[in-house]
């Protein structure tokens, strides 16, 4: 007799029994011990038919292929740049992935990206040893100049972006700031000093309230109150 012992979207802690019997399957973040399926990390349950998986809620960023991330240039070597990804592993940005310009042998690479510069890059490959390759060729991938940077939990990034970018689009519309959200939990913004502060305040509010229902409406009301503008939801 198999049964699932938890509800959908319930918080569970490591070692908690999620299901009994052999009819259910352990998904991501769970493991099987004998007849039982147990949680292998702290997370939110997600029951999909017979499979139970856990959605991670906290922790450091783990690099994944095709993620767009905001990185800082750490070091420069012969063939390119070593950049910090806000995770346990640094990434390699090779010369040919950095720019379509022709770079002469022995050229000074600091004229493209200098130490301490921030760039928006996309992960092209992650190996089993977590060696990361990134590219700067693609829409929206560029060097960040000016503005300011804040760090958020990487597991809240989907809520900050919203469905098809609706949430970040709304903040942009309300504040007239340029905003880039990296999957690795770094958020860059540029605009007037006051509106940058408002963006940060809004993002902190999203972070704190992301698990409560009706988030978009609340953020919309909050932004309308702060700016006095009427906002259209879903516009980008």
């Amino acid at each position, binding site marked *: 007799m198999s049964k699932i012992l938890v509800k959908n979207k319930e*918080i569970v*802690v*490591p*070692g*908690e029994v999620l299901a009994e019997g052999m009819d259910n399957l352990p998904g991501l*973040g769970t*493991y099987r*011990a004998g007849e039982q399926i*147990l949680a*292998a*990390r*702290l*997370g939110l349950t997600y029951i999909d038919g017979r499979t139970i998986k856990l959605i*991670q*809620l*906290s*922790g*450091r960023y*783990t690099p994944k292929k095709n993620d767009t991330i905001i990185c800082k240039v750490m070091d420069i070597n012969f063939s390119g740049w070593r950049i910090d990804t806000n*995770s*346990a*592993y*640094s990434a390699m940005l090779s010369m040919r992935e950095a720019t379509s310009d022709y770079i002469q042998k022995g050229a000074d690479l600091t004229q493209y990206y200098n130490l301490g510069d921030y760039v928006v890059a996309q992960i092209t490959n992650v190996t*089993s*040893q*977590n060696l990361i390759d990134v590219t700067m060729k693609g829409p929206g991938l560029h060097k960040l100049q000016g503005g300011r940077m804040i760090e958020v939990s990487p*597991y809240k990034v989907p809520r900050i972006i919203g469905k098809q970018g609706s949430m970040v689009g709304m903040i942009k519309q309300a504040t007239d700031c340029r905003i880039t959200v990296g999957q690795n939990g770094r958020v860059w913004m540029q605009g007037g000093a006051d509106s940058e502060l408002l963006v940060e305040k809004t993002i902190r509010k999203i*972070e*704190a*309230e992301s*698990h409560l229902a009706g988030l978009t409406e609340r953020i919309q009301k909050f932004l309308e109150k702060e700016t006095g503008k009427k906002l259209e939801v879903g516009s980008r």
Partner: protein
Amino acid sequence: MAYKKRLDGRKFDEMRKIEAKVGVIKKADGSAYFKFGNTWAYAAVYGPRELYPRFLQDPSKGILRCNYNMMPFSSKGNRVRPGGSRRSKEISMVTKKALLPVLDLTDYPNSVVDVFIELPETEAGSRTAGINAASMALADAGLLMKDLVSSVSVGRVDDKVVVDLDYSEESYDGGPVADIPLAMIPKSGELTLLQMDGLLTKEQLKEAIEMGKKACNELYEIQKKALKDKYVGGSNE
């Protein structure tokens, strides 16, 4: 002379007042504090993060580093001095060995997970409070773990077997005393820490371990509740 009643009036199988909270250090990837009466342990987890010097790196899995430290004002006596000591080094090591069996760091080759355990106030049972706090902090850091670890000290005071000794019991001079800190994986009942200091019989040791296991199961529920409290309902404050 028999030990009829505990010096602070607790039952023989009763622990001191327990308090646990998760998410107490904002900048850390995971954090918690745990209190056994006047023994107060903070744990903060950083990582997985880059590990240097490079010769420490393990290409097959991430490594765990634990650091146990009693703050210089945490208690009186000659064991409390600023900086590390042989004692703190040993406790750091046993803490690491108590936590490693539940952790799975194979996803993070060449990296390190740092656990810092700081004790602002101590009065016996500090390593067990440290392990409890560290295990909650590791779970809060979102790491893969097959279970939490719960830890308590048991022991013998004169003719009685007791759980969670405080300082007055550890230094009881009306008869023999033994102090046994232990840590357990609640789900499987496996012990990951078992140390002993003092004198006791084989039967007393068995009885003490059974009592400790029972107490660990109670602790597990408290740890579980503290972890859920951070995420359910309330904000992340």
